[in-house]
């Protein structure tokens, strides 16, 4: 009576049919293949206006971040360095993610407020800040979405810990497991000392 769930009754007839128009108002997700994209269009220049008014205060005029808010652009080619910078352009695999996320979560404090056209415009602008879109006259829409490809798309692979970390499945060593006496190599930070910006750990 613990562990695996028992076989439970099905075909209960609970819930009621959801009408398509009900679903449509919540069905806001966008997939990498473009399914779910709303109908609409917006240019980089139109996006700049929106970005300046609604986004730059936190993300910086060039997506470089303001204060402690997140960075949106930059870091291309840094992923294999000691200090990788992960942004929309340097790290994200798909542009659909950007369009989906901006709509459901941004601007922070007024989510799901952008129209479809505004969404395409400001997404285009963020891609422009990331040098994914180069032409400021470019107009992004549900029709040309598939043309947008991000540089890091191919660099994700599924969890391989069971193979790559197979050596963690092992007999536990009980004696003389490491050489010599243990030496302390690092000590903790005092919690009430605020680190310099960019110096301390952060929560992701």
């Amino acid at each position: 009576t613990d562990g695996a769930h028992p076989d439970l009754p099905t075909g209960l007839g609970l819930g009621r049919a959801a009408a398509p128009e009900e679903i449509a108002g919540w069905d806001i997700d966008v997939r990498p293949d473009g399914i779910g994209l709303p109908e609409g269009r917006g240019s980089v220049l139109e996006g700049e206006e929106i970005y300046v008014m609604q986004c730059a205060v936190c993300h910086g005029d060039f997506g470089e971040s303001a204060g402690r808010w997140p960075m949106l652009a930059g870091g291309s080619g840094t992923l294999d360095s000691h200090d990788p910078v992960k942004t929309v352009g340097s790290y994200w695999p798909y542009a659909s993610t950007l369009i989906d996320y901006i709509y459901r979560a941004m601007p922070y404090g007024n989510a799901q407020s952008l129209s479809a056209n505004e969404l395409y415009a400001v997404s285009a602008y963020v891609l422009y800040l990331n040098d994914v879109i180069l032409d400021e006259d470019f107009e992004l829409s549900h029709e040309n979405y598939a043309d947008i490809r991000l540089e890091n798309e191919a660099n994700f692979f599924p969890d391989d810990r069971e193979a790559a970390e197979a050596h963690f499945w092992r007999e536990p060593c009980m004696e003389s497991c490491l050489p010599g006496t243990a030496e302390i190599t690092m000590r903790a930070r005092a919690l009430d000392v605020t680190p310099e910006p960019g110096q301390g750990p952060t929560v992701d």
Partner: protein
Amino acid sequence: LLGGKAVAQTAAGDPANLPPNVADWSRYLGEGVAVRAYGRPSEHESHVIRRDVEWLTASRESSVSFTPLHELDGPITPNGLCFERHHGGIAELNPQDYRLVLHGLVDRELVFTLDDIKRMPRVNRAHFAECAANSGMEWRGAQLNGCQFTHGMIHCVMYTGVPLRVLLAEAGVKPTAKWLLLEGADASGMTRSLPMEKALDDCLVAYRMNGEMLRPENGYPVRMVVPGWEANMWVKWLRRIEVGDEPWYHREETSKYTDLLENGTARKFTFVMDAKSVITSPSPQAPINHGRGFTVISGLAWSGRGAISGVDVSLDGGRNWRPARLDGPVWGKALTRFYYELDWDGSPLLLQSRARDETGYVQPTKNELRAVRGLNSIYHNNGIQTWHVTAAGEVENVEVS
């Protein structure tokens, strides 16, 4: 007697209340019943709280507050102290207005009220929920001085919930369905893609924690529970489940919760939480105040792959290990309490614990992890934690060779 006579007791105490004197609370009537219709802890426990670290995030609405692990014992976390991890603050849903939409590659697209969900068959299971970012601040070395902060993005409560497979059976899942999208009703519109096999296994559409309804900060009235997998997938304030044939690659499973390796590639879909443990006492916030002699080393162990099979403790920074005692229930994919009873001779210690799970996995050292993953993978830091105990009983978060 072990190690000599007992140490003198904690000082202080008002003599008027100590034997042979009789305290006021033994003479005069206290508060009556039902004055506290819903109880709260003693005012003397007001230091036992969730805490955040202000400078860790840009704002409190997308941030974390940590479970005070050093102040707790046993395998269960009490409801008021369960860590928070929000991306748009706490959504305060009115249960009358709660709806769960279930649609997509199903025979019947359905919407459920809370009463519908509470009417369904349910189960009760205790599971740990650990954020994959737990201990993430510690990848580059010993950083935060307290297990509340190094390991406190975890809790374990008894959930009451409907097996997700029961809900899916109401809708009738089409053969082409392979993935679900879980979506929350909070201001971040949190979404995660869930593989169908896991959905049909042990996921719960849960609404209770330790018997009562979920707390607002833990997803009231309904959240997903994905046993053993990273807590970000346990979408809170669950409003929608879409059944599909491909993962959605949304922001939390691309920008976040992917694990960057040294060569610039990144693991995706790293769902399961590897076996892990931590000593909660002694720890930096719980120094040894009693001096030498009998000492209980207490901690927690857990594994997303099943039950903990054992925990070992080292006093010398991982050179030598001794088995600890597991105590209380040992559930799969839940917190397990362990103890190691020690006659402390007052010499400095480099304390470590090491979890082992039923699959044969043995918790690695941070060095072993970094050798595989580098320093920048952020998530899934399940490395062995070292506490340096000084002769004075002070405890510090350290790393060792």
